[in-house]
């Protein structure tokens, strides 16, 4: 066990030395890996922030239930009873007279409303469900529309559906992007390690002749790949944080123009750790592929 640990410590030390032995090459590789990881990482942060925005927006969603103009008080009362019996919804009754009064209070409409011979507005109910997912709102709309003397059920959720579809599409695009750039990271590591194996051909040959196992030869390359990937991940996190700082002001101003408060939030420590971890795993995979192929030439 002590020997095994000692060999791992030595391999890790050799990998670190190789990283610093050619600082320019290391820097360029880290930049390539960092940029490859920055795009999906930034996309993740942006989508995460947008998902929060969607949650806030759907929290105030309403379903408006309009009765037929000729519905009797008893019929309206029956619908009110049915709505109040619905679990997880808050219902507010808006009588047709109240609706007309509100319309009159609207300066732009006052003149037109006053010229009407009679009140054209129906009684209505404002239903606020606790669960505001697009699927639930759609189910409620369909149920209410089947009730007697209900003329129209209005669900202003089309944009939510579009937004949700956009988020799903964004998530899929992000996955594709992450896969693509992940493959790029593996390719960068593969090439770096291949060059290293070629540069250290003499050492590998001698080490094998004097009793080095495959594991002994491979280990420093694996550590190198993982270290390079992890550092690339940290660089990507730094680039994302930097970009968010630059964008924070303009994004806030844009959101204010729409009367909303929206901010892109920076990755948490756990997310930064995960990014470094993903980089390390991809680097390790690239190193393993490269070493396996490159060492065949020594057999």
């Amino acid at each position: 066990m002590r020997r095994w640990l000692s060999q791992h410590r030595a391999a890790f030390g050799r990998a670190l030395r190789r990283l610093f032995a050619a600082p320019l090459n290391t820097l360029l590789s880290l930049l390539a890996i960092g940029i490859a990881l920055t795009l999906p990482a930034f996309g993740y942060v942006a989508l995460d922030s947008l998902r929060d925005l969607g949650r806030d927006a759907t929290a105030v969603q309403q379903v408006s239930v309009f009765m037929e103009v000729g519905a009797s008080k008893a019929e309206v009362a029956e619908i009110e009873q049915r709505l109040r019996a619905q679990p997880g919804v808050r219902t507010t009754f808006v009588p047709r007279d109240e609706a007309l009064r509100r319309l009159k209070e609207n300066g732009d409409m006052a003149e037109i409303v006053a010229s009407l011979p009679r009140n054209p507005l129906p009684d209505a109910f404002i239903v606020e469900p606790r669960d505001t997912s697009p699927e639930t709102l759609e189910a409620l709309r369909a149920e209410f529309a089947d009730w007697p003397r209900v003329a129209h059920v209005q669900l202003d959720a089309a944009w939510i559906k579009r937004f949700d579809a956009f988020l799903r599409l964004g998530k899929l695009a992000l996955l594709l992007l992450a896969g693509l750039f992940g493959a790029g990271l593996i390719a960068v590591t593969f090439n770096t390690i291949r060059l290293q194996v070629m540069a250290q051909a003499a050492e590998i040959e001698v080490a094998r002749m004097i009793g080095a196992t495959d594991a002994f030869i491979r280990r420093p390359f694996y550590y190198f790949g993982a270290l390079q990937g992890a550092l690339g991940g940290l660089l990507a996190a730094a680039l994302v944080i930097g970009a968010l700082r630059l964008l924070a002001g303009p994004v806030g101003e844009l959101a204010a123009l729409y009367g909303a408060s929206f901010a892109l939030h920076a990755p948490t420590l756990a997310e930064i750790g995960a990014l470094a971890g993903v980089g390390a795993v991809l680097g390790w995979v690239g190193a393993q592929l490269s070493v396996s192929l490159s060492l065949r030439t020594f057999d």
Partner: protein
Amino acid sequence: MIVASQLTKRYASGFEALHGVSFEIRAGELVLITGHSGAGKTTLVKLIASIERPTSGSLVVNGQNLSALRRSAIPYVRRHFGLIFQDQKLLFDRSALDNVLLPLQIAGLPHREAVRRAQAALDKVGLLAREKAHPIALSGGEQQRLAIARAVVNRPTVLLADEPTANLDRESAQDIRDLFADFHRVGVTVVVATHDQAWVEHCGDNALRLDHGRVV
């Protein structure tokens, strides 16, 4: 200790480097493998060190049949040998000390102990004062002594060398021969492929003569 029986090595090209070679080397012996160029000396050294595999026949070292060895077991067998090559195979981007440390790192020795043993090996071959020098800064004789230090640092049971005195001046060659004699005196089995006549004359009976891949 080393028993070869009807050992044959034929390369993919069809060239037969060794044909039906049989011999026995006992523990603690010093044996020279001699013969003209192309006689099969280097091939025999490579077979003993498991760098190459015999086409047929058996080769038993320390009770292990190398012909039937699994690939994964080969590195552990090689650690029993101290290998010295004609071209030394030193690492020129490392110091003398780091070159000698390599077998100990492979064996997984803690760094401090490894350094102590590597320095002792360098001291044994008279190179301790030059432990920080890179091989390029050493003379031919010193490079060969460094290769010997690397070969013995793991305290091998067998010291196996291929033409260790080739390309050396008379004085350096004598130093190398003396070093091998020293290791032989302390009980290490020494097998050397050489066409160094001075050495062959001095060892007399302990020579395995090869001619066109056969023992003569």
